[in-house]
């Protein structure tokens, strides 16, 4: 620290402002060397696929002449989007996705928030141990979590379902009416602890003086939660909600892995599954690209829309 302090004075004495500016111009080249490797990879593996998808989605393979000629790559503009959006299967998938979002997002945010706040009361034994247990599923791949919950959703291997049926409750988690909740439960199990940790970090950064002031004002625990903690961790709640929305729109792995266990999940259950199916089962990359772009546009629109709604209510959450 002392070395740094003396350096400033030495720098001021030795170099005039013009000298410093000349050197900083030279450093722009160096800055590019730091930034360029990542940027090139980012362009290749994030930006290029998106551009490729957008371009590919406006083409189709069509036979020339009366249908007897060779297949040709023809520009069809929005035809693939029309085809995707007018397909009943894809529409059903979109509807299911919105319903899933509606179930999963509040469930996730409320669970993560409640767990973080309960552990933050400072009145529990072993808070770090509980945090570790809740966070642990984050290290389990979605595929493996789904395989495990799959066993717990089948009466012959599930101790939970066996216990419930002994109590007279006959629950079928993989029935068409329940399957979205069954999937929501897997996502909740995987990510609630992670989101709880994000909120816990925000709670920990609240200065203790604020709590002391509140205690002097005789604020109870509920008042602290509603008037101090929740308003102060609002940016993190917004962040968690945003990432949960984006995560739910990607729904793919869980239904794919559960699908052999139930007839309630078909190959176009979610838009992503429909895109995968179009690309590899039907060999129609252009329709698949159109479906992928539709999901990306929805994700983007919902992210922006959510942030707009949050910011309109008068606080600078973002």
């Amino acid at each position, binding site marked *: 620290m002392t070395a740094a302090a003396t*350096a400033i004075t030495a*720098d001021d004495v030795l170099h005039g402002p013009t000298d410093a500016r000349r050197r900083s111009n030279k450093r722009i080249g160096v800055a590019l060397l*730091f930034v360029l490797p990542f940027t090139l990879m980012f362009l290749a593996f994030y930006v290029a696929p998106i551009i490729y998808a957008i371009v590919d989605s406006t083409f189709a393979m069509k036979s020339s002449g009366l249908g007897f000629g060779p297949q040709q790559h023809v520009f069809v503009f929005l035809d693939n989007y029309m085809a995707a959006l007018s397909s009943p299967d894809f529409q059903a998938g979109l509807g299911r996705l919105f319903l899933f979002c509606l179930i999963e997002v509040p469930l996730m945010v409320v669970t993560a928030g409640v767990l973080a706040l309960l552990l933050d009361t400072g*009145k529990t034994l072993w808070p770090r141990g509980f945090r570790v247990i809740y966070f642990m599923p984050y290290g389990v791949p*979605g595929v493996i979590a789904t*395989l495990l919950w799959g066993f717990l959703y089948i009466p012959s291997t599930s101790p939970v379902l066996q216990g419930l049926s002994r109590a007279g409750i006959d629950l079928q988690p993989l029935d068409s009416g329940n399957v979205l909740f069954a999937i929501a439960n897997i996502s909740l199990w995987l990510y609630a602890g992670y989101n709880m940790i*994000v909120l816990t970090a925000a709670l920990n950064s609240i200065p203790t003086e604020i709590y002391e002031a509140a205690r002097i004002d005789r604020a109870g625990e*509920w008042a602290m939660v509603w008037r101090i903690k929740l308003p102060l961790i609002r940016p993190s709640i917004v962040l968690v909600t945003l990432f949960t929305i984006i995560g739910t729109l990607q729904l793919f792995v869980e239904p794919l892995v559960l699908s052999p266990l139930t007839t309630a999940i078909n190959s176009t259950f979610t838009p992503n599954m429909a895109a995968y199916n179009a690309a590899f089962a039907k060999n129609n990359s252009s329709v698949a690209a159109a479906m992928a772009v539709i999901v990306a546009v929805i994700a983007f629109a919902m992210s922006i829309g959510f942030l707009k709604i949050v910011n309109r209510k008068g606080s600078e959450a973002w």
Partner: protein
Amino acid sequence: MVSAATSVGRHSPGFPRFALAVALVIAAVYFLLPVVWVLLASTKSPGDLFATNGLWFSDAPQLGYNISRVFTESGGAFGVWVANSVLYSGVGALVATLLATACGYGIAKYDFFGKEQLFWLILAGVLVPATVIALPLYFLLNTVNLVGTYWSVLLPSMVSPFGVYLARIHAATIPDEVIEAARIDGAGEGRIFASIATRMIVPAMVTIFLFQFVTIWNNYLLPLVMLSDGAKFPVTLGLTLWNSQTQRDPYFYTLVVTGSAVSMVVLIGVMMGLQRFWRAGMTAGATKG
């Protein structure tokens, strides 16, 4: 006893200690249930898996036999899958950490034209669903004959926009005076980054590494789309391959369960061992308001 009760009552009329403990224990049971189930299931034969109480041992535990079957089945495929996962996650996360740290440092500590626009473009990358990228990437890599190779999974895994975000926040905390002092002492820009800057943000780099490691390890769609040769599969893809063969031979149930248990224990062990490093990243996300 009395004084404890009154002190609790004074500070928190809304939170009875007992109800709090019950809620936390119920949540813990929920999060532990599948883990306990799979650990117990990995000690059972396929018959016992379906016939015995899922939350207790069978009469004839055979964990050792199951584990040895997991590692010998299909010519030792499981070991290859674990090694592949370690390769994809380890190498991918290492390169991703270096690229993201250099980029975040460059954005934080230098001025150049369009740097805020570049940063926002990268942040927008965080918002793009990974599944949206994977399909077009398959067709793109197909045109350069990379599909089906190790590179098709490794190269995309080396890009972490979230890492750039974390690196920029942490690099911004490096005092400019330190960098200026090093310059006066004659250190070049590269040397300053390699031997001074990176040392000051090691916790952030470890966090980026861990995030990316877990992300790659858990990734399913990318290898599913890119790979067809079982010898290049990561462990997630390999286990679903086994899962698809349970109709043919019920023993694959036990192989899937035991394989899941083994890979879970390994990754949770790594994660818990490096637990304290998670916090640096989480806090950074939280304080950016």
